[in-house]
């Protein structure tokens, strides 16, 4: 275990030579934290190639034929699960969906036992969505199969950050030097954590904005500028990412009301004018129109929200390919 863990946990940026990566070092994708900048670029470049498959009349290649991928979801998710499923089908993998309702945990089977049971079926990859931060680390320590983190608690959602980066790169031609603003419930957001790691690793200037009650303690050490004013944050921004505000945050006393949130932090057409003229607006979904984002902004010319969804499939195909069918995969030769 220690040997496998040795390569993890370091900063993402700059550890690898400039020559570029041709494969991922780990059997797992647990977070952006475990990737080098070159590995991030490798996934993005591979995803670009995968996009072409989705544009063909017959959207299927035999790359992962005979490989088994388990989609193990402990949280409801339509978008991410569907996106992985489409990606798996396009690569001809045999995929298996296991959706564990919250109540099954109460029945007593632990994640460790679930993992061992799955392992007995010898899957090549397990895609895990789980409400606990670090759940994919636990699974990866137990399983021989590769583990793809499809969102763990408040920790990371690496494929979301990768599809966001792919979208930015397509629209802007680069990531380095861009001013990217992330606004919303930063405290509880795994999308924030993955995106901050990825964007800072690739050289973006990242600003974040949230009410003080939803600001992660210690965020100043994340390598970002943290603000409590959306107006100051979006000033001159090239990219604005809006995060979802969950209704249950009112009960935790984090916010007085959704209406007030929209007044103080909502992205309106007026606020958008403070940004760069060619700003793009992103949202990982699902959106709350009229809470974090005005409808005319979500549907407006700057919005790339639906492109993000399309890129989600390509990025997940790339990750599946690199982990299960990629080059230099001697274990399955």
């Amino acid at each position, binding site marked *: *275990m220690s040997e496998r863990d040795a390569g993890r*946990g370091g900063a993402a940026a700059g550890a690898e030579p400039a020559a570029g990566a041709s494969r991922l070092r780990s059997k797992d994708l647990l977070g952006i934290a475990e990737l080098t900048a070159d590995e991030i670029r490798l996934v993005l470049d591979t995803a670009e190639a995968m996009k072409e498959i989705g544009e063909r009349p017959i959207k299927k290649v035999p790359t992962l034929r005979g490989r088994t991928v388990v989609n193990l979801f402990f949280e409801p998710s339509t978008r991410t699960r569907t996106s992985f499923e489409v990606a798996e089908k396009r690569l001809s993998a045999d995929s298996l969906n296991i959706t564990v309702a919250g109540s099954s945990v109460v029945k007593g089977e632990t994640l*460790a036992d679930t993992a061992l049971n799955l392992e007995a079926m010898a899957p090549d990859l397990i895609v895990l969505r789980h409400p606990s*931060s*670090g759940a994919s680390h636990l699974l990866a320590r137990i399983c021989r199969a590769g583990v793809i983190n499809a969102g763990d608690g408040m920790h*990371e959602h690496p494929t979301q950050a990768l599809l966001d980066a792919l979208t930015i790169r397509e629209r802007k031609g680069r990531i380095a030097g861009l001013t990217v603003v992330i606004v919303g419930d930063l405290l509880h957001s795994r999308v924030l954590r993955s995106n901050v790691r990825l964007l800072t690793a690739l050289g973006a200037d990242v600003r974040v904005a949230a009410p003080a009650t939803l600001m992660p303690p*210690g965020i100043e050490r994340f390598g970002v500028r943290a603000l409590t004013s959306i107006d100051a944050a979006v000033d001159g921004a090239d990219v604005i990412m809006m995060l979802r505000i969950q209704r249950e945050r009112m009960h935790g006393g984090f916010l007085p009301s959704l209406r007030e949130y929209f007044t103080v932090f909502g992205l309106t057409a007026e606020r958008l004018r403070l940004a760069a003229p060619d700003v793009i607006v992103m949202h990982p979904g699902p959106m709350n129109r009229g809470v974090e984002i005005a409808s005319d902004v979500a549907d407006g010319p700057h919005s790339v929200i639906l492109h993000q969804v399309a890129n989600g499939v390509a990025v997940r195909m790339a990750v599946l390919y690199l982990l299960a069918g990629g080059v230099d995969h001697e274990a399955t030769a």
Partner: protein
Amino acid sequence: MKRLLKGGRVVDPAGGRDGAFDVLIEDGRIARVGRDLPAGDAVVLPVPAGCIVCPGLIDMHVHLREPGQEHKETVATGAAAAVAGGFTAVACMPNTTPVNDNAGVTAYMRQKAAEAGLARVYPIGAVSKGSAGEELADIGELHAAGCVAISDDGRPVATALLMRRALEYAEMFGMPVIDHCEDPSLKGEGVAHEGYHASLLGLRGIPNASEEIIVHRDIVLAGLTGAAFHVAHMSARGSLDAVRYGKARGVRVTCEVTPHHFVLTDEALARPVPYDTNVKMNPPLCEAEDRDAMLQGIADGTIDAIATDHAPHHADEKNVEFDRAPFGIVGLETAVPLVFDRLVHPGHITLRRMVELLSTNPARILRVPGGTLAEGAPADITILAPDLTVSVAAARLRSKSRNTPFDGWRLRGGVAATIVGGRTVWVNDGMAALGA
């Protein structure tokens, strides 16, 4: 039967002794301490060169899990772990199942300890019935049954009023109130110290203020009542400031710190193993500034005691998602090596101070026998081996549980032998002569 510990360096702060002395044990008590005592008809136990003879170490904060959670630990396995760690006595917290809130449970624990015949076990009774934070437990009966303090450990004493009443009432029996200081509303669903590392890993935070607020509250109440309050497992630097403030004003406040809080920081959440549930404890591992403050408090005398908060949990309970794992780690068998390696050898404290923290002061705070090598005292003696190399191996712990973050650590300093009531109850491999 007489036994003579010959040739060691005796460190006994209570008796003001530090030097080459022999210790004569007779009928389970210290008969004499002096230079070059004649053996006479005593069995001579030669103390290995470089070893320290000190009053038996007392861990004033352990969880022995019996009755009710015997899959984690029993009084017998906990006592075995204690003596292997150099402790001749432990004080065990009442959060068993059922809670030790009545004389029957206290008597049961003491019976189990007598059957084990290893370390002395001093039960700590509950402050409130069921530790539910509402009505006072039968504190007088608990005292009569053998409890040495009261605490609702595992949770804080629920309200300021209950704490006030507990202090006033327990004082009649000469018992301190030990509080697990934590504001439940600030702790919320927190699982790790609130700060950079928890934020990065997406773990819900517990701010230092959660502990500091209750330490402040209780110091004010100890001042109000004139009774004795002891801070359990202090972790936050602001709590230490509060204790300094209380002591300076003559409030009867004492405090303890655990080895993990003066050795580890919240960086251990991320490295070497991310989300290792063996670094999940309550209070959580804090920041380097807090750890450094604990070192300072240990060195300057503000901190009275080192206690382990030995909290065994079954491997299955810990092999889960971080936020679902129970809080706590075992500590009895790693405390002495950590104190030597991290406090004594680096020069933070002297050997004399080490013995004060682990023996003299716990005995004084709990008003239990021991903590001294005075003639007539029980012959509870720990023989320390300051230069022994200890390789911590979780699989070889005497405790029933293995939940330690120190597995695989190599530390300098350990225990040569543990003597309770004149009887050698544990001796390190290779020092068999001490077991005669």
